[in-house]
């Protein structure tokens, strides 16, 4: 097994792990935006979920309790966003930004008061975390050339939430394009008045969309603090909520392409980390700050629209008002 092959495999492995929370958050954003509600608050929901998951997992001793807490917290924030933007028709972006800033401060304040560790939650032991799962026969099949290592390194050995993240994508596709709820969801994002005159509740549909998003963000946040890492740290989402939004735009609001966009981000991030400390002929060592800046730079470049203008759902960003 050549070194290059192994390096590629490990990079792809890292890609999958880095992309998982992005995929979950992007799917959350997809439901919201398809229903006509812009959700800048993905970042805040993920962060709050990460905090909730790590805190409760530390207190109760099992990551599942953490996951449950994360989902509850994330859904509550989603409902807050809905209350402001749907019921009171407030500006959707301002609401999302408010939630993000609020969560940024609140997680530290609560963490400090409850755990006295400068804003961190207690480090989780193995019982309180999600651990890697070895799929059946991974070791035994490792000898098969090419496919064996792929199965062992790339496909097997992830935490359960990673598998959940990838399983969610086809589920989301099916719900959005093959069910009654999905039809209504897409209609509400394009022409909410048409939905209203068909006798359906625009408000209820949008709240449902936000709720689903809340659940997905909860999982994403829980993944960060109880699977990928072993505790909550200040601002640990580091902009991934926004990057998920960029992936959503780049992937044109379709589940499969959005997932690919998230994988792309994950891949470039993993690649950049690999290049840390490596001297490139002619340029020298790439400074660590540049490595850190890569995902943000990439987001800007992609948003600059080299893939052409992406057309969002027509009603996205506007509160629904019955016109006189």
């Amino acid at each position: 097994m050549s070194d290059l092959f192994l390096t590629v495999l490990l990079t792809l492995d890292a890609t999958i792990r880095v992309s998982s929370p992005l995929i979950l958050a992007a799917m959350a954003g997809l439901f919201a935006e398809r229903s006509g509600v812009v959700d800048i608050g993905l970042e805040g929901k993920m962060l709050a979920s990460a905090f909730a998951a790590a805190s409760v997992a530390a207190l109760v001793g099992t990551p599942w309790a953490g996951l449950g807490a994360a989902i509850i917290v994330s859904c509550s924030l989603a409902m807050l966003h809905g209350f402001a933007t749907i019921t009171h028709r407030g500006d959707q972006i301002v609401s999302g930004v408010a939630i993000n800033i609020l969560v940024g401060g609140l997680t530290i304040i609560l963490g400090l008061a409850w755990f006295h560790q400068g804003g961190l939650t207690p480090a989780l032991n193995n019982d309180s975390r999600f651990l890697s799962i070895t799929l059946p026969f991974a070791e035994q099949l490792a000898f098969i050339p090419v496919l064996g290592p792929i199965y062992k390194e790339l496909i097997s050995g992830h935490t359960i939430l990673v598998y959940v993240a990838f399983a969610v994508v086809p589920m989301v596709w099916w719900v959005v394009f093959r069910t009654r709820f999905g039809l209504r969801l897409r209609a509400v994002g394009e022409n909410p008045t048409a939905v209203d005159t068909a006798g359906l509740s625009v408000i209820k549909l949008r709240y449902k969309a936000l709720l689903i998003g809340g659940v997905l963000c909860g999982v994403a946040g829980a993944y960060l603090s109880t699977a990928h890492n072993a505790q909550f740290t200040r601002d640990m989402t580091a902009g991934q909520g926004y990057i998920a939004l960029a992936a959503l735009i780049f992937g044109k609001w379709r589940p499969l392409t959005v997932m690919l966009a998230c994988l792309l981000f994950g891949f470039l991030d993993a690649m950049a980390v690999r290049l840390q400390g490596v001297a490139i002929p002619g340029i020298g060592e790439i400074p660590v700050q540049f490595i850190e800046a890569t995902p943000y730079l990439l987001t800007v470049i992609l948003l600059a629209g080299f893939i052409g203008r992406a057309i969002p759902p027509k009603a996205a960003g506007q509160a629904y008002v019955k016109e006189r």
Partner: protein
Amino acid sequence: MKRDTRITWINRLLLPLLNILTAFAVTAIVFWLIDVNPIEAAEVLLYGAFGYEEGIGYTIYYTTNFIFTGLAVAVAFHAGLFNIGGEGQAYVGGLGAGLAILFLDPTLGAWVFIPASIIGALIFGGLWALIPAYLQAYRGSHIVITTIMFNFLAASLMVYLMVHVLRDTGQMTPQSELFPTNAWMPFVHDVAAGLGYNIEASPLNLSVFLALVCAVLVWFFLWQTRWGFAIRATGKNGTAAVYAGINPKYIIIVVMCISGALAGLVSINELVGYQHRLIIDFHVGYGFGGIAVALMGRNHPLGIIVAALLFGTLYQGGAELAFEMSNISRDIVVVMQGLVILFCGALDYMYRPWLIRRLAPVTKQEEFVGAAI
């Protein structure tokens, strides 16, 4: 009082007041959640902000920053743009101020350094907003996401520069050389001493007057010039603005540059006025605070000054609070910022229907106004 006038009072005074009080009320709940008596906390906070001379100085010093970023966000809002990039623009503005100072001959007088640093801050802050503005205007890239990304990029850039390029070789921490004394914005306590008044030393410096001047200039620009008219028209109705001969792409770029430039002036207060060198993270919190200040002040310079004072108070009071109580950090101010943005921004009309029903209800005579002709 005519109904129209009542509604104006409700919109301009009562609503913002109620929204703030709600934000305070929720903060009190947060205090309760972390086992702190909200009344006690309020007392400590107010004492820290106004109870002693040094504290007052700090309060006004912080207020200055919030005026700059509040104005920055407000100017953008008037054009219908949400500038969340204040953090990054303030940071990079510091680069402009620092470069202007570090590359000029140290024997030059303050009357060269100070204006040069201001111009440097304005230009660099404006430039950092230019790229997201251009991308929004000409490529349709969502300005909210790009400005947030530029915040992160600013952090990477500035740290890199301070670690590798501008570092003061005598120090371990990444920071630039000390500015020559001629390039220091005079402290208020020094000026006061010169005039015969003795007040406690604090970081408060003459930048506060720069901030007030900026507030007046912004007011004049937006409401007393044709460019301000064009900007406000674009923000209210882009199609009508095009009809009126206004070029919206042009407006986006100009407004964002002005906005970035104003945010950049934070560095004058922080670096030229106090730290006297380029340091890491001097800007943290002011960019987002500016959003809260602009929303609370309803995007009007007068309201912004009042709102900035409130947040300056919270910042200084918050520091006192963090000092006195071990389980609170300054992040409580961030919580307040988020709550203010929520209640004064997203939920700003929450109380409106109720207020109008109680205070300015429709009366029989006002039916069918203007329907006939």
